């Protein structure tokens, strides 16, 4: 049974006013602890969680540190993170076992849905929800958006024997049900800075129009009634589809009511500008994610740099004019023994460093927003020639002090990926007890 939890936001909404609140017994976090002696409003920022995907694995010998524990020497691929060494962990020995067991499509097509779900997939897609969506469903009601999902590339059309859904989506709300990603930086910007669409109703001389949010609410109520009237006439399967739509309408109504919660680091992001370049576009998305965290627009996010087949060519990394995916199949480690593949991984790592920098620059409580976040940075395979043991994993952020960081941890070979995600869920305050394939207990040595 899910423990009863009362969010501070619930109280605020109920009271309709904002004031300093006393600590109540019910205000405990997912690990059954409560914040001693002080009101949450001042001392307990929320824990944010994010899944961040880069394509086609790494060359492991250039990724994995030689020693375990703290104070390990940086490897070529980790170099961009050197300034953050105390803010993240490197995990070794974790195996994406569920991917091997999945049915339907090639390794990329099974790997992408598996990436943040660690579930045994099928021809419809993932075998279960991704961890960001578990959090969105369980705890996401506290913010305007339960989660934000974006992708740095247009939806690809390659299916690799499965479907485009497999290849293009890392966030899944349930088995086989992906969460569509925003792929347009400008639209993502618009979502974050302004919920009200441009234009607005034209004015007339007759009367005073009601405020847009109230009008929106009355239209949504009306659409709800339309759903009900059609629902009565259709079969069970179609009724279920209309019910899904009604669920979405309820979400929209909730967003209209959710109060804005603005922290000190929250400022309007800069305009988007030209985003044709891969890195520029990724940085625009990442800055917007940071804004969303800082402004508490959402606490749960996912971002992918490329689709299941990365057909992007990287002229600023290599003179090789092949797509990334093709490079990974020009011999085991590409055409140059892994030099280009390593450069690409390092390039992606610098984007993680960019995000960590944005979050670390934002003070919150006694620390920074990074201190109150947990970011899983990884890939759909271990090495680009299709291996799944020893997945490259960076786990960044302190999750509000619930994760110890600064270490390289080596787990026994065959440790299932789902345990990584269960650990993240626990760190972020979820009451979930099992997750994905074999996620029955957390990884040792991480949770504080």
């Amino acid at each position, binding site marked *: 049974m899910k423990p009863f939890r009362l969010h501070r936001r619930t109280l605020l909404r109920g009271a309709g006013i904002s004031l300093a609140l006393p600590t109540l017994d019910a205000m405990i976090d997912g690990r059954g602890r409560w914040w001693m002696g002080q009101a949450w409003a001042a001392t307990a920022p929320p824990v944010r969680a994010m899944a961040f995907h880069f394509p086609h694995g790494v060359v492991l010998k250039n990724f994995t540190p030689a020693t375990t524990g703290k104070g390990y020497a940086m490897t070529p691929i980790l170099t961009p993170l050197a300034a953050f060494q105390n803010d993240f962990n490197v995990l070794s020995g974790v195996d994406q076992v569920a991917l*091997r067991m999945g*049915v*339907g499509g*090639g390794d990329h097509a099974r790997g992408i849905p598996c990436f943040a779900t660690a579930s045994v997939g*099928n*021809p*419809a897609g993932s075998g279960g929800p991704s961890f960001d969506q578990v959090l969105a469903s369980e705890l996401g009601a506290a913010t305007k958006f339960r989660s934000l999902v974006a992708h740095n590339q247009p*939806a*690809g*059309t*390659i299916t690799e*024997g499965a*479907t*485009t859904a497999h290849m293009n989506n890392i966030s899944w709300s*349930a088995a*086989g*049900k*992906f*969460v*569509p990603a925003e792929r347009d930086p400008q*639209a993502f910007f618009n979502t974050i800075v302004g919920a009200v*669409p*441009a*234009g607005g*109703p*034209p004015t*007339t001389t*007759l009367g*005073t*129009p*009601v405020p847009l949010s109230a*009008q*929106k609410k*009355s*239209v*949504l109520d*009306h*659409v709800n009634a339309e759903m009900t009237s*059609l629902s009565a*006439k*259709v*079969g*069970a*399967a*179609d*009724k*279920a*589809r*209309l019910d899904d*739509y009604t669920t*979405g309408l309820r*979400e*929209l109504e909730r967003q209209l009511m959710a109060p804005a919660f603005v922290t000190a680091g929250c400022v309007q992001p800069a305009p988007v500008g030209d985003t044709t370049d891969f890195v520029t576009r990724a940085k625009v998305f990442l800055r917007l994610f940071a804004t969303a965290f800082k402004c508490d627009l959402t606490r749960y996010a996912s971002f992918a740099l490329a689709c299941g*087949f990365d*057909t992007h060519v990287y002229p600023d990394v290599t003179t090789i004019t*092949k*797509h990334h995916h*093709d490079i990974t199949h020009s011999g085991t480690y590409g055409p140059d023994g892994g030099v280009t593949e390593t450069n690409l991984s390092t390039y992606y790592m610098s984007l993680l460093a960019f995000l960590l920098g944005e979050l670390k620059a934002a003070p919150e409580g006694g620390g920074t927003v990074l201190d109150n976040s947990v970011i899983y940075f990884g890939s759909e395979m271990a090495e680009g*020639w*299709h291996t799944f043991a020893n997945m490259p994993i960076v786990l960044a952020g302190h999750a509000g002090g619930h994760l110890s960081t600064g270490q390289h941890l080596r787990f026994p070979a065959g440790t299932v990926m789902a345990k990584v995600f269960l650990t993240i869920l626990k760190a972020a305050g979820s009451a979930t007890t099992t997750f994905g394939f074999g996620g029955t207990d957390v990884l040792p040595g991480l949770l504080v």
Partner: protein
Amino acid sequence: MAMRRLTAASMLLGALVVAAGFGCRGQISDPATSSRGAGSAPSSPGIGAAGGGSGVAVGGAGGVGAAMPGVFKPGPASLRRLTTTQYWNVITDLFGAGAPQSPLDPDLNIGGFFSVGASLVSTSPTGVDQYETAAQQIGAWALADMARRTALVGCPAGATLDQACAQSFLTRFGELAFRRPLADTEVARYMALYQVAGDFWTGIQAMITGLLQSPKFLYRVELGVPVASDPTTRQVRGTEMASRLAFLLWGTAPDSPLLDAALQTDQLGTPAAISAQVTRMMASPKARIGMRAFFSESLNLQDMAVLNDPTLAADLHEETLQLVDDIVFTRNASWQELFTSPTTFINQNLATYYGLAAPTGAGFVKVAWPATSGRVGFLGQGAFLVATSTPNHQSPTLRGKSVREDFLCQNIPPPPPGVNIQFPMPQPGNPMTTRQLLEAHRMNAVCATCHKFMDAIGVAFEHFDFQGKYRDKDNGLPIDTSGDLDGAPFADPRGLAGLVAARPESGTCLVRKFYRAAVGHVESVDEEPAIAALDTGFGAAGYKVMSLVTDLVTSDAFRVVSASP
């Protein structure tokens, strides 16, 4: 609820997987020309090993049932959500061109068809938000300009902007949006929304945003009416039939003449009444545009990402659709010409691509393939050759697979889990052609069972690289394009194209796909008799698609749905 929906989807996918699980024993054959009994028994060992050559009999879910086809029984009537293309087509019809476009919930592709996915797709919370945003933006845009909003609302000059005017707008506009007249209860509900808004234009905008988010707008409601003589079926007629016809042939909502016909006494309830409308509809330029979605899906033209050149991909896509348009609409010629056409359509960009003389002007012109090009028909076009390649590699396997799956409607099972599907690399100092590498690959008996069906025909295209461009040699070695299609030998791709065109399955395959697009689901074994009958008619009419269209939309298969969805 969500569980039930998922079950429906996974049952369909499960059926495809079961079918795929047969393996490739014996000879691959099409359900229409082989013994269905044998082909439909997945557990029976040694299928096709003896006599008859029956093997993987797949054309859809048809492989699942064990019964021989008998009497046609119609499939279910599901709500079909408008595809993104259809949504924006309808918006243009309702408001004129130029409405602000924003992203919509993605379409679902099932069995190669968005039209099938539309019957199963569920709308995500993000999608609901996107439909709401789109409706708000379109409503605001439609009313922002004085001239546009006056034309839209359409009350007589000098009329008061009052409730009567709002209601006359609602009645007229609502009929186009819902593809049927509004019921009195609906008029009352929308007028209540108008009242809440507080002023005339805000009220109109609230009604528009409400209409555009209504399930009666976003979904095609074609549930049929009870048939007295047969309680197991329902007949699709009236405005529902108008909608069914318009989305199939035009990719958009019915126009006023079609809705008017639907509201007359016979209510499009007879083949003759439908036929009269279809003749008008197919003669309209809207059909040439509307049916592009079907041909684009059925010829698998979506996937040319390996080119990394969106302009070239769009031009190659257009080339194929122009060829189809020429065969189907301009000349009403045999569908077989898709494979055997000695001509194609190029613009200046494609002239460079193919190494042909550039046409004057910016448009596409019809040109003959030079004999030396080795190209003929669709299988000689860049679109086919690129869509069946992987990044930087042409793949005889994928090309052979596409010929079988996309044009003969046979299914090749995926490789067993866990096998290395990476293309073998030649050893340094020992150059080999792709064909030779594949032959070595087929020494593995497990791989060979299926690969012989694909590779033996895919090698026909070896003169064309992954970008669809001609190459004289492969890895410095001469290229051998000879092979056989189930025992019938060919020397080159032109020979193979002739064999594919001559196979009756290439006609049946189009019938099957058109059927799926029309009814919005993958056919069950109970629907096979309808496909067989349409196939017979298609052959008798000289494989003319125009004839197939009329036959299909006037048949029971299109006019009747199951009473139990």
